[in-house]
């Protein structure tokens, strides 16, 4: 079931394929993140997967705001714009509207994208400008040295909350769903293959893609996501979402998700419950996406990663192009006609 109209535009497929290696996407700038920062892996995966897209690198633009994460564009050997705090989605929107043929990526942090830039983010999502948005969520302000962010957990002790934060955090995916984002996903800095897969899916999707990437800030918020990324714990705490597949997880693949009314439950795949009783993931189902996004707040539920929702709808910039083409076909504008189009008179 879908609450939003179904795919209207075909997925882009054919490009003249340049042959790149990941090196081609590495700029000549020194990478300046702290040693051990999760940002390195995200950069590496991006550089690794981009050659697969077959987009000429001069047609790619990375736009960011301000924050550690927002240094990202400097390291990609494409066009790039490291802008000001929170405004990357708007700058990228301007680029994309002006030049729909470019592949435009936004890199933002939980502070940059969810705090000061929250409004631009949700408006971009509702408009469905064909931008690829990567939210590096480390649940902290890194660059300003460790204040809590809008995704930091309630009670978090930080420089600006010595007695613990009393801010109920945003759930980024829930907010994106509330803004009717057409593509909503989550991946992990340390799961290199999964991240590459998600980036590729995003690239192929026509519309705004919103990807939350759990990113470890080893200096100010070390280990925030270790239970989802470390070998010992990840299998039991992460639920990999795959379209059309039942929701199974656990080291032994012996646990699953069942629905009781609207309430999801973890069940063991012992005798009483079989795989056939489990919820089956469906990227086209918004209600399911909503339920999955809410796992964060539910004790005992694994954390889903993957594509929560992917439902195409018209993109903003193509709609504009369409209006323009129609108007031009009707009557191509000419300044001389325009300026004389109302009442004019001659004085001799």
């Amino acid at each position, binding site marked *: 079931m879908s609450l939003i109209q179904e795919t209207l535009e075909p997925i882009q497929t054919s490009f003249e394929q340049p042959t790149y290696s990941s090196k081609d996407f590495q700029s000549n700038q020194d990478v300046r993140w702290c040693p051990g920062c999760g940002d390195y892996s995200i950069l590496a995966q991006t550089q690794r997967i981009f050659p697969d897209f077959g987009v000429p690198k001069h047609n790619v633009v990375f736009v960011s705001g301000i924050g550690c994460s927002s240094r990202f564009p400097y390291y990609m050997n494409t066009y790039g714009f*490291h802008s000001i705090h929170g405004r990357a989605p708007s700058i990228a929107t*301007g680029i994309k509207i002006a030049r729909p043929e470019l592949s435009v990526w936004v890199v933002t942090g939980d502070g940059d994208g969810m705090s000061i830039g929250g409004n631009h983010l949700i408006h971009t999502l509702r408009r469905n400008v064909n931008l690829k948005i990567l939210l590096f969520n480390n649940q902290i302000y890194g660059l300003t040295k460790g204040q809590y962010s809008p995704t930091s957990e309630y009670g978090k002790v930080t420089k600006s909350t010595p007695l613990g934060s009393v801010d109920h955090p945003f759930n980024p995916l829930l907010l994106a769903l509330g803004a009717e984002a057409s593509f909503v996903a989550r991946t992990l800095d340390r799961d290199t293959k999964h991240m590459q897969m998600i980036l590729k899916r995003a690239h192929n999707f026509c519309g705004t893609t919103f990807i939350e990437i759990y990113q470890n800030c080893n200096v100010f918020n070390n280990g925030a996501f270790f239970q989802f990324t470390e070998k010992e714990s990840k299998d039991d705490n992460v639920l990999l979402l795959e379209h059309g597949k039942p929701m199974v997880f656990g080291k032994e693949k012996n646990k699953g998700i069942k629905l009781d009314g609207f309430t999801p439950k973890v069940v063991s795949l012992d005798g009483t419950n079989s795989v056939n009783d489990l919820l089956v993931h469906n990227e086209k189902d918004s209600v399911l996406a909503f339920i999955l996004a809410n796992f964060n707040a539910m004790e005992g539920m694994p954390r889903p990663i993957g594509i929560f929702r992917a439902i195409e709808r018209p993109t903003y910039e193509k709609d504009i192009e369409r209006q323009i083409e129609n108007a031009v076909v009707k009557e191509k504008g000419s300044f001389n006609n325009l300026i004389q189009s109302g009442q004019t008179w001659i004085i001799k």
Partner: protein
Amino acid sequence: MKELLQKEDITIRFAGDSGDGMQLTGMQFTSTTALLGNDLSTLPDYPAEIRAPAGTLFGVSGFQIHFGSTEIYTPGDVCDVLVAMNPAALKVNLNGLIDGGTIIANSDSFDDKNLSLASYNSNPLEDGSLSKYKLHVINISKLTSLTLSDTQLTSKEIDRCKNFFALGLMYWMYNRPLEPTIEWMQEKFKKTPKYVDANIKVLKAGFNYGDITEIFTVRYDVQPAKLEPGNYRSVTGNEAVALGLIAASEKSKLGLFLGSYPITPASDILHELSYYKNFRVKTFQAEDEIAAITSSIGASFAGALAITTTSGPGLALKGEALGLAVMTELPLVIINVQRGGPSTGLPTKTEQSDLLQSLYGRHGESPVCVIAAKTPSDCFYTVYEACRIATKFMVPVILLSDGYIANGSEPWNFPLIEDLSDININFRTEKDGFFPYLRDEKTLARPWAIPGTPNLEHRIGGLEKQQVTGNVSYDAQNHDYMVRLRQNKIEKIAEDIPLAEIDGKESGKLLLVSWGGTYGAAKTAVNNKRKENKYISHLHLKYINPFQKNVGEILKKFDKILVPELNLGQLSKVLKHTFFVNTISLTKVEGQPFKSIEIENKIDELLK
């Protein structure tokens, strides 16, 4: 046959309730008068409320037109005729009427309720308080409904036609033809012919009322002005901005991108441009002013002719992002239609109080080019010039307009595309020797290398840039160098613009310096003084940052410098610290343009 007197110029003010159609009436009178070859200037004046309750003082909407057989630079200091559709309109506008002036009052609306809403204790049409004016009390509503008594219109619909009675009467009184308005009605209401018929009937009834009744004994005629020969149309400042942008886009072959958030009195530029899809104009109504300017910055990076339009509060919000455009050295035109401040202030009134904000309203040393338009039609040339400078020097340019010239209109001997100077754009495509911050020696402009260009991949941003490479640099000397370079680059523009021209002698006792919309009142004041054989010189400044190269020289040749401004003396401050000359400020912050008499009085005082 009634007497026909010749007049050199006339000012009429139509005033009524917001719902009475006064703006429309005024605009019709304007078109017809323009067609007759008069020069003219208009001043629409409407309340901040959309449709305030009928009859209230704050709901009064006015439209003033000043037309003549000579050149006209202002909408008129005082009116010769006041058309008052209700008591509130009379109350609000009476002090703008010249002693002995004419009042046309719609007596039907002077009932107890409306009188009390306008805080009248007695009916001014009857109590003799208007004895110093030529008062014409006409039951316009009644006459309108009589005229339309045989139609199927509802009484509400009929009442809406009464403004055309007043218009018809004015057409009679000032010897104007009805045809242009009739043609306009036929076009405008073509889907509802009953309205066309009704309106024409009422318009004619008004005209005939003047002709037939005994009330009026004289009519007036205002001969065409000796305007430059050419093709004319009427234009408001906001329309002229939109047209100028279309022209700049066509001439530069750059796609036009407008990122904007609606705000009075700038919204009409957005409205105009959003119609021009067939010019491939892309208008983006953003979620706020910050998204408006930043989307434009993105579009500029991508190679568009990027514009953002706003008014004062919006410019305040754009300050941070404007700094980014300064640092990234991208072309951008910011159009600020000034209104009354501070804060929400007087949103529908005019003011010139954003000059200092335009110059200094950003953190750090963040210089931008600032230029100002002086009249409605000058908005066209000024925005065109802004586009030229922005793209040639790779800088943000702020264009200052104001509520008065944005909404005011004048006849315009308009150019065709071939009459305009070229705007040449050279996107960088050559790989060899490319560095994002390697400059053109003459303009200091960095190359405009847009995404999609093979081999020129590069990164820009808001952190300080290393010269030439454009890499991030925290180097002390480099920062100092770049701060001064950005300043120089703006100053360099002075070498690319014409010298300032002075109107009058090159030295003397008194120089009048104006900028922006005060041009008209200043010019009129100077002309009037000359008629009295008082010679003063006049310098109008279009370019404010940088000033033209000879401005300092000119200023220093005068004993006194008078600077009238609709603020507390902002240009004065800038002249003082730039040229170290003393100035005399004439300031007025009443939400209204200067009257030329206010400037004339000051001149008299200074010449004493």
